[in-house]
């Protein structure tokens, strides 16, 4: 009797859960201060449509969160929507039919016309259909400099990579770490990405990273980038921090002169109440060329056979790409909006530089966009090994890089 009652109650609760189909669980890995504030903007905007955003934040970085998300989707317990980075992380899930197409919404709202640059939407496109909503653009190609550190060493703040390298011996003499790189493998890959994009140039970057053209690795331009990589290893010797934000903190405090990092580092400077141009300097494309990369985040929607949930998913997709939510979200997140028709007057100097380049300069694909998870992790392993082994010759890097590109093409 009692058991039957309990069973009945359980069924009733489940049924009630289905009836409130407008509850959408959204999983993401945005848990730091500025990130949580940014994602709350989406939640607020979505709740305003009469639906309910159920927050499913997964602590840790993407490396921790993604396996959880993937296993929930493949294991038959899909959430309403989930974050992934732009690019190929969710490609296989889409190919296996586990994700729903947003083609109808995209066509009706003209996403192909409003999203800028177009490459960011193309990353969502598989077999001609759009499967994700891009929400922001993070450029990975920045050099962040501490004005304090250079002042202490009696130097002028450099305006490009060469000046920065030239300043290194004097910085060392003043007891300042010239370049700080954390021990997380992806940070090392990011340094390499910067050097290829800035030193070898966007053309070579496109051939090597985007097109995986093995011949392009053996060009004089790439040799210059490899030489810069050796220099970077020398400059980074002695930096023994782990996380990227610890490295940024060293730059903020003036213990290190520079860090190569994506524009999410800006959030750390903002929290420390530093002012761009006065306390720190940001150089896009290492100050060598006006260039941004288009990594970032996108939301994917698992295929759920329930028209009410499907309708709520569409509503969420529309909210995320709406001009109001784009502005509110990206200002908090410190990233650039995916559409050029919104007004970001509140953006600071560095972000403005990035937006200008996005509008007029060269745009290249980010690593996550261009490479599969497999290839980009192999690249990270290779680079972190290189930065930790002072005797590892650059020829070996070249050889391994060719191997990675061949495997992934």
């Amino acid at each position, binding site marked *: 009797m009692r058991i039957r009652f309990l069973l009945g109650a359980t069924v009733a609760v489940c049924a009630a859960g289905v009836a409130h189909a407008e509850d959408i669980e959204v999983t993401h890995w945005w848990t730091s201060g500025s990130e949580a504030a940014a994602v709350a903007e989406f939640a607020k905007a979505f709740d305003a449509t009469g639906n309910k955003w159920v927050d499913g934040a997964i602590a840790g970085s993407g490396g921790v969160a*993604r396996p959880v998300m993937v296993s929930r989707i493949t294991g038959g317990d899909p959430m309403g929507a989930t974050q992934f980075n732009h690019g190929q992380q969710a490609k296989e899930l889409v190919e296996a039919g586990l994700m729903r197409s947003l083609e109808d919404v995209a066509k009706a709202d003209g996403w192909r016309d409003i999203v800028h640059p177009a490459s960011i939407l193309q990353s969502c496109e598989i077999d001609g259909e759009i499967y994700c909503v891009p929400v922001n653009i993070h450029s990975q190609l920045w050099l962040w400099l501490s004005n304090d550190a250079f002042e202490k060493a009696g130097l002028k703040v450099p305006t490009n990579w060469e000046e920065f390298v030239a300043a290194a011996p004097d910085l060392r003499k003043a007891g300042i770490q010239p370049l700080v790189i954390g021990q997380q493998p992806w940070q090392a890959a990011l340094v390499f990405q910067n050097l290829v994009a800035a030193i070898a140039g966007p053309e070579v970057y496109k051939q090597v990273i985007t097109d995986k053209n093995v011949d392009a690795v053996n060009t004089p331009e790439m040799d210059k980038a490899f030489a810069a990589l050796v220099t970077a290893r020398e400059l980074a010797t002695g930096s023994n921090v782990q996380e990227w934000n610890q490295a940024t903190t060293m730059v903020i405090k003036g213990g290190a002169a520079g860090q190569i990092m994506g524009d999410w580092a800006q959030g750390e400077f903002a929290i420390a109440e530093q002012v761009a141009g006065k306390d720190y300097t940001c150089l896009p494309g290492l100050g060598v060329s006006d260039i941004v990369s288009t990594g970032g985040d996108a939301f994917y929607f698992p295929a759920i056979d329930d028209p009410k949930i499907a309708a709520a998913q569409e509503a969420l997709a529309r909210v995320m790409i709406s001009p109001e939510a784009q502005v509110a979200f990206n200002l908090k997140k410190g990233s650039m909006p995916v559409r050029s028709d919104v007004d970001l007057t509140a953006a600071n100097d560095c972000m403005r530089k990035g937006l200008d380049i996005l509008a007029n300069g060269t745009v290249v694909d980010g690593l996550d966009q261009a490479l599969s*998870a497999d290839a980009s992790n192999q690249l990270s392993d290779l680079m972190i090994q290189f930065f930790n*082994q002072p005797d590892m010759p650059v020829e070996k890097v070249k050889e391994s890089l060719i191997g990675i590109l061949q495997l992934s093409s």
Partner: protein
Amino acid sequence: MARSNTQERPSRLFRNLSAKIAAVPMILTAMVVFVGFSVWTVVHSFTKSGLLPRLNFVGTLQYERLWNSDKWLISIQNLVIFGGCMLVLSFVIGFVLACLLDQKIRYEGVFRTILLYPFALSFVVTGVVWQWMLNPDFGVQSIVRGIGWESFAFDPLNNGKIVMFGVVIAALWQGSGFVMVLLLAGLRGIDDEIWKATRVDGVPAWKTYLFVIVPMLRPVFVTTLVIVTAGIVKVYDLVVAQTDGGPGIASEVPAKYVYDQMFLNQNLGQGFAASTMMLLTVAVIIIPWAYLEFGGKKRG
């Protein structure tokens, strides 16, 4: 007549029927989980499975890539270093501690508890604790320097050449007490008459331990060896907590390689190939040993 005959002699299959029925779930579990899933893994290691398992065979490509990968080779090398050090040192330390505790000292229970206590901690806690202990800025190095030895340098976790020994220290701290307790139990099982006999013959205590007691403890040693070895092959959480494979990839281990390939690289085929190699290694060690240990004698 024939019917009563069968009733008197039931077929072998139905003898001890209840015991056999009781064993069925375990047999099924063993067949499906251990054998079935292992075969599934081995089969898929010959495919190009990415994020999801698929049967698109590519021959031995995954194995070629595996054995060309620096990360895997370093992992194997580290496992050998870690395993060798752990086996030798945990047994030496464990046995010496057990012998010392066996001297009928006062407060034995207290010492035993203290020495076994680290074993009650998870590897993650051990890893984090020893990450701090070995941190040059506020661990062992700074304490020794604080005492007055200014030039003292001990920073294994930031030096790729010796980082594995930093991991070994943590693992020893955790595991030695466990070896000690097992061996101590064995020592307690030794008949007092043996000790009396060797004393009558005037054999020194250390000789008795090495040449009389150790051979008598063989079964205990074998059990301990199996447990410790299994722990060595699957070491993962300690490394993740203590070094996360760093600096660079200097402290990678095979189990971590498998996890990284399967869940970070989204490359199941490569992960399966690596775990198949791990299975093979274990089988190469275990099968001859099991044959020698159990194959020869019939115990009924």
